[in-house]
Structures are given as structure tokens and as C-alpha cells.
């Protein structure tokens, strides 16, 4: 009796083990990765308590925190490391990821109701003022100054470039989030095409157009098979963001939100509308009349377009052979800007709900998620940390596509960004929608740029803006 039972037990064990050993490559990798992180987590805990700074990490043991954030690659990376935090502090974290529109909607509903369902959430720099207006975000400076909660020397706030951390401050000077990404545009370009045609990397906007013209001429002559350039043309949201950023680089103001003035129907506004649509129509691939970022990204990775203005956050993807057909031919440079022009900063930051019942515990989480140690572990996986020191870290350098990429980012972070462009205003969304839809019309050939500016102004007047003089 006993013998056969033991035998069958052994048999089952053997079968189960072979299942784990001999299974599909995909699942094996996932299993390996999972066990790796588990091991990391197990190693982190017994390591010196000072690894994350010298405070009592276990002071809120037993608390449960709820986090909501946008579903994006960096959030997935955070999710992987959360068990480490749970081991370190004895807390539990419920980590929810929603697509961005849902995330914002869920946050707003929670904030308005004061129900504090979410203790910690991510905030995009463009949401900041809207949330600050309702006093939904907890001011963070007191937590930074509290030695029981923060090891200031270790945490080192000076590690953030001044223009990057500036984004975390509301207009009245209160720190409301800690950034964990620093994003802006870079020029993504095909080094092979540039070498083949003997082109220099454009630094200003007129240079960009001239370069595009040369590439297009070469394409028409059959020397290369890529189109020169494309921007986001989608008429809701995305195209608008791109337009405003381009305007910033041209040092053109499209809207005055505080004074409620629409400046689209001015010389500057026309210059932008005309330039933007002209670049897309003349140099963009056919059928690109309603492209969102994913389409632009795909077209570059498929080798259809030679240059795009793309975010630094997504740049490593283009150099990844799993995603991109041109992985080994791409390089990056700071985005072309005119004198006095800068690229608007975009960043994501972690914030604490002002109605939360676990604010101190939440601060531990926010601190841990933006700590030098965790950043050093995570940054090689997503590429755009907000802390400057990471950019000289050997692991980070090894994981990035090229030194030019790192240099371009450092340049942008320290000299090329504007942390408070007008487009971060709370009213930005609807106005941009209108302007982007008109740009859409121009790209589709329905009207010309001048008419588009006039019509955009008319629509803006309808929702309460004053027309330009």
C-alpha cells in the first residue's frame, strides 16, 4: 500500500518537474525572469538597511496602499519591483494600471468624491494644474524635510536637473509630485540614409526642412526608398500636442490660456500651421493623414520614414531588433529648435492623494519608487529617468542604443527643455482639439493653412476665447 503510494507521488513529482523543464521557450523565459526578480527581492531584503536610505522602512508595517497609474512600459517595470517594496516595508501594495484616459478619469472621480480609493497615483505634467486647482495633491516638501521619513543625503534632491524638478512644482511654488521620467522630443533618424546622402544632423527647424527636401529628392530619384519626415496628424489630442511642441521650438505662442486669448490666427500661428502641415503633406508617406503616435513610430520602425520627432522614452524601442526592422541603422540627436525655442518638458511623477488616510506610508512608497537605488535598477529597462546621475551609470550606458542617445538626452535635460510652457494649462485639452482638427483639414487638402487658422479662431471664440488683434 504505502510503497505504491510513494511511487505514484514520485511519478507525479517527476512529471511536474519535467513539465517545467521541457516546456515552450516563451513560458520558460517568463518563468526564469519571474524567479530572477523573486531572487532579487529575496536578496534585497537581508541587504543592509541603508540600501534605500537610513530610515525605519518598517514603521508602517501592515498598511495597504492602492496605486493607480497609466498602463505603459515603465509602469510594468514598477509592477515587477513592487514585491521588493512589500518585503522591505511589510506593507501591501495594490498596483492598478489603466490606459491613460481611464486613469485620468478614475483619478478625477476619486478626487472629487474624496473617497481616497487611491493613495498614490501618477500625474502627467499637463494634469498638474488641474489637480492642484482642486487641492487634490498633497504637498511633498514637508515629507522630504522630515528626517524620520526621508534620508535627505541618500535621496539627494540635487540629483534632478533644475528644469526637470521644476515640473513638479505648481504655479504657486508647491512641490506636488516627484518625477520619474523626463521626456521630450529627440530627432530619430536613419544614420545609414544620412551617410549615404552625406547629410549633417539638422539643428534648427529650417535645417530640418532642408534635410527633408534633400531626402525627398533622393527618393524621387530612386536613390533611397524612404520618405523623409512625418509628424502626428491625428485630429484629436495627439496631433495637437505635437503642434504645440513644434510651436514652442519655433518660439511661437499659439494660445494665451490665462488671458483667454486665441493666438492661432496671427503671423506666428499661421507660420506654425503652415509649416506643420506642409512638412506632413510634402514629406510624409501616403495615407498618413490621421496618424497617431503609434502609426508614426511604426512607420519609422518599418523603415518607411527617414526622420521623425519622437519621444526619448520610446527611442530605445526603435533600436530593438524585436520591434524594429531598422534597429541597427538608427541614431538620435536633440530635436531641431530655433534660437530661443525650447522643447516642452513632459514628465510623469508620483503624487499622494491629499485625502489619503495613509499619507506617511504613501510617502515611503513614493520615495522608494524614485530612489537612486531603484532608479539605477530600473533605468536600463526604460531609458529616461529623471535623475541625472543615472545617465553616467555603467549599466544604464550599456543598455542604451548609443552614446549619442545619452548625450542628446543630457543636453535636452539641462539646456533644451522648458518646464512650464503655456500648453500645460488646465484648459489645454479642448483648445488643442480644435486647432488639431483644423490641421487635419489642411493635411487632408480640404482647406489651406490660412483658412484653417481663421476657422480655428472662430471655433475657439465659441468656447470663450478672445480673437487675436
Amino acid at each position: 500500500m504505502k510503497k505504491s503510494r510513494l511511487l505514484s507521488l514520485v511519478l507525479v513529482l517527476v512529471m511536474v518537474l519535467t513539465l517545467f523543464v521541457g516546456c515552450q521557450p516563451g513560458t520558460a523565459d517568463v518563468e526564469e525572469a519571474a524567479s530572477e526578480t523573486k531572487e532579487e527581492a529575496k536578496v534585497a531584503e537581508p541587504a543592509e538597511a541603508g540600501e534605500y536610505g537610513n530610515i525605519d522602512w518598517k514603521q508602517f508595517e501592515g498598511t495597504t496602499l492602492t496605486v493607480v497609474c497609466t498602463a505603459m512600459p515603465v509602469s510594468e517595470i514598477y509592477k515587477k519591483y513592487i514585491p521588493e517594496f512589500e518585503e522591505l516595508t511589510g506593507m501591501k501594495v495594490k498596483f492598478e494600471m489603466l490606459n491613460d484616459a481611464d486613469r485620468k478619469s478614475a483619478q478625477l472621480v476619486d478626487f472629487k468624491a474624496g473617497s481616497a480609493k487611491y493613495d498614490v497615483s501618477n500625474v502627467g505634467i499637463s494634469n498638474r494644474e488641474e489637480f492642484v486647482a482642486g487641492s487634490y495633491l498633497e504637498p511633498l516638501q514637508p515629507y522630504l524635510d522630515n528626517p524620520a521619513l526621508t534620508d535627505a543625503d541618500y535621496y539627494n534632491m540635487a540629483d534632478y536637473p533644475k528644469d526637470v524638478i521644476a515640473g513638479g512644482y505648481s504655479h504657486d511654488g508647491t512641490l506636488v509630485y516627484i518625477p520619474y521620467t523626463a521626456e521630450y522630443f529627440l530627432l530619430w533618424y536613419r544614420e545609414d540614409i544620412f551617410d549615404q546622402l552625406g547629410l549633417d544632423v539638422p539643428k534648427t527647424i529650417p535645417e530640418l526642412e532642408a534635410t527633408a527636401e534633400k531626402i525627398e529628392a533622393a527618393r524621387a530619384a530612386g536613390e533611397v526608398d524612404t520618405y523623409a519626415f512625418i509628424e502626428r496628424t491625428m485630429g484629436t489630442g495627439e496631433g495637437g500636442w505635437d503642434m504645440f511642441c513644434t510651436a514652442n521650438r519655433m518660439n511661437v505662442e499659439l494660445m494665451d490660456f490665462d488671458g483667454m486669448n486665441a493666438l492661432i490666427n496671427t503671423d506666428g500661428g499661421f507660420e506654425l500651421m503652415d509649416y506643420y502641415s506642409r512638412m506632413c503633406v510634402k514629406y510624409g508617406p501616403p495615407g498618413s493623414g490621421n496618424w497617431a503616435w503609434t502609426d508614426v513610430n511604426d512607420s519609422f520602425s518599418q523603415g518607411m520614414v527617414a526622420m521623425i520627432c519622437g519621444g526619448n522614452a520610446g527611442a530605445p524601442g526603435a533600436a530593438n531588433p524585436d520591434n524594429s526592422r531598422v534597429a541597427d541603422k538608427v541614431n538620435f540627436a536633440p530635436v531641431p529648435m530655433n534660437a530661443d525655442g525650447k522643447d516642452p518638458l513632459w514628465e510623469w511623477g508620483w503624487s499622494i492623494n491629499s485625502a489619503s488616510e495613509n499619507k506617511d506610508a504613501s510617502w515611503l512608497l513614493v520615495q522608494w519608487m524614485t530612489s537612486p537605488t531603484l532608479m539605477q535598477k530600473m533605468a536600463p529597462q526604460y531609458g529616461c529617468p529623471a535623475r541625472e546621475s543615472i545617465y553616467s551609470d555603467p549599466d544604464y550606458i550599456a543598455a542604451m542604443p548609443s552614446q549619442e542617445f545619452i548625450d542628446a538626452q543630457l543636453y535636452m535635460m539641462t539646456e533644451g527643455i522648458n518646464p512650464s510652457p503655456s500648453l500645460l494649462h488646465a484648459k489645454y485639452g479642448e483648445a488643442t482639439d480644435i486647432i488639431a482638427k483644423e490641421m487635419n483639414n489642411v493635411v487632408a487638402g480640404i482647406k489651406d493653412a490660412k483658412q484653417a487658422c481663421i476657422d480655428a479662431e472662430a471655433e475657439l471664440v465659441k468656447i470663450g476665447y478672445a480673437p487675436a488683434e
Partner: protein
Amino acid sequence: MIRKKVSKIVVYFVLCTYSVLSMLPFLLIVFTSFKMKKDALSNPPTIWFKPTLSNYIEQVLNTDVLKAIGNSLIIALAATIVAIALGIFSAYAMSRYNFKGKGISQGIILSLRLIPPISLVIPYFIIFSKLGMLDNYFSMIIMYLTICLPLIVWMMKSFYDEIPIDLDEAAKIDGCSRFQLLRHVLLPTIAPGIFAAGALTFIVMWNDFLFALYITGFDTRTLPVEIYNSIGYYSLDWGKMSAVAVVAIIPAIIFIAFAQKYIVKGLTMGAVKG
């Protein structure tokens, strides 16, 4: 004679072409689900490719998608069951009786179909957010009732209508109570119809996007929204989208294959005898 033959060939040709065209988008999705992510979109589009199961293994068998499938199942099933429970009785009454207010009742139930879904989402969103019920199975089931109630009640009424009233009379004479009449005579007769009606409504709710997009949240996300979320932050994962889409199509395929006859009844709510 020749004329008949020619027209026969023409008819076959037209119908064959139509069938093939009908299946094409569906086949496209199926093929794409077997392509590697890099190959999913290519310029120019290809016919031959190296097939892989990775999309199914990695994407479909992951917890988010499985949870979405579960959510879609729970919500659609629950709404269907509630509608059928209500329908059994009200359809019986409307089929067997003439009463004052019958017309109005039928009109009210039918008028639900006139309401554009978006016109319901706006007030529901405000109500649910005030009550803290946004990420909640109960809320979704309530909303889905607006889709399935009219359909199911009407279909069941037409099923009841087909059973001659003499049967009722005969059972009564035999001493059946109404409850027994329903349970042992009427319901068993129309059971296949109920099943088909339920399946048809189930599919409509299974495919719903609008309600789910705005009222579900992290815990209750349904399959169509999960598909929509394949638009990742940086790029659209065609592999995931098409694999999940194929899974989403399965209930519909099963239903079409087996319940043709009832589809017409359901689609026209009995207005046409079929």
C-alpha cells in the same frame, strides 16, 4: 434551357464571391494572430509568413486577458439570466392576455431600443461615480439590461404566440395550475427558443464596446475594452489584438453554426415570421 444554366452560374458566382468577401476580414484577423509582431504590418502586405503560436501563448494566456474573458462572461451571463427570468412571466402575460395597458407596456419595453447607448452612458456615469459604483459588476449588469430586456421579452412573446392557446385550455381542463402549465408544458416547448434568444443577446453584450469603455475599470474590464487596450503606450500590438479578437469571436461562431433559425426572430423581435 441555356438561359437557365447561365443564370444559374451567375447566381452561384455572385453568391460565392459574396461569401468569400464576407469571410475575408475574419480570415485576415485569424492569419494576423499567427504572425510575429514585427511581421503583422508590412509594406507591402504579404501573403506568406512564418506562423507562430506566441501571440496566443503569451497574450491570451495572460492574466489580464483571462480576467477580461471572465468579466465578459459573468456580466453578459448574469444580464441574460435576469432578462430571461423577467421575460418568462411578462412574455407569457402579453401573449396570453389582453389587458388594459398591454399596449403601453409593450411600447415602453420597445422604446428602450430607441435610446442611443451614449445617451444612457452619460447619466449612468454621473450616477455611478457619485455612488462609487464605477468599477462594479452590478453596474454593468444594470446597464446591459437595457440591451437585453427588449430583445428577450419580445422574442419570448413570439415563441409563446406560436403555441396554440388550446394547449393552455386543455391543460387547465386536466387540472393544471398556471404554474404547472408554465413549468411542464409551455417552457419545455419553447426552451430551445429561449436558449437561442439568450445566446443571441449574450453575443450582443459580449461584443459591446461603448458601455464597457466608459463604465468598467480595472477590475471589471471586458474583452472588447481589453482589445482596445492593445493600443499600447508606444505601439499597437497587432499580435495581441488579433489573438484576443479571435478568442472573442468564438462564442459567435458557435452560435451562428447552430441557431440560424432563431437569429431572424431575434433580430426583428418577432416582427417578421421566420
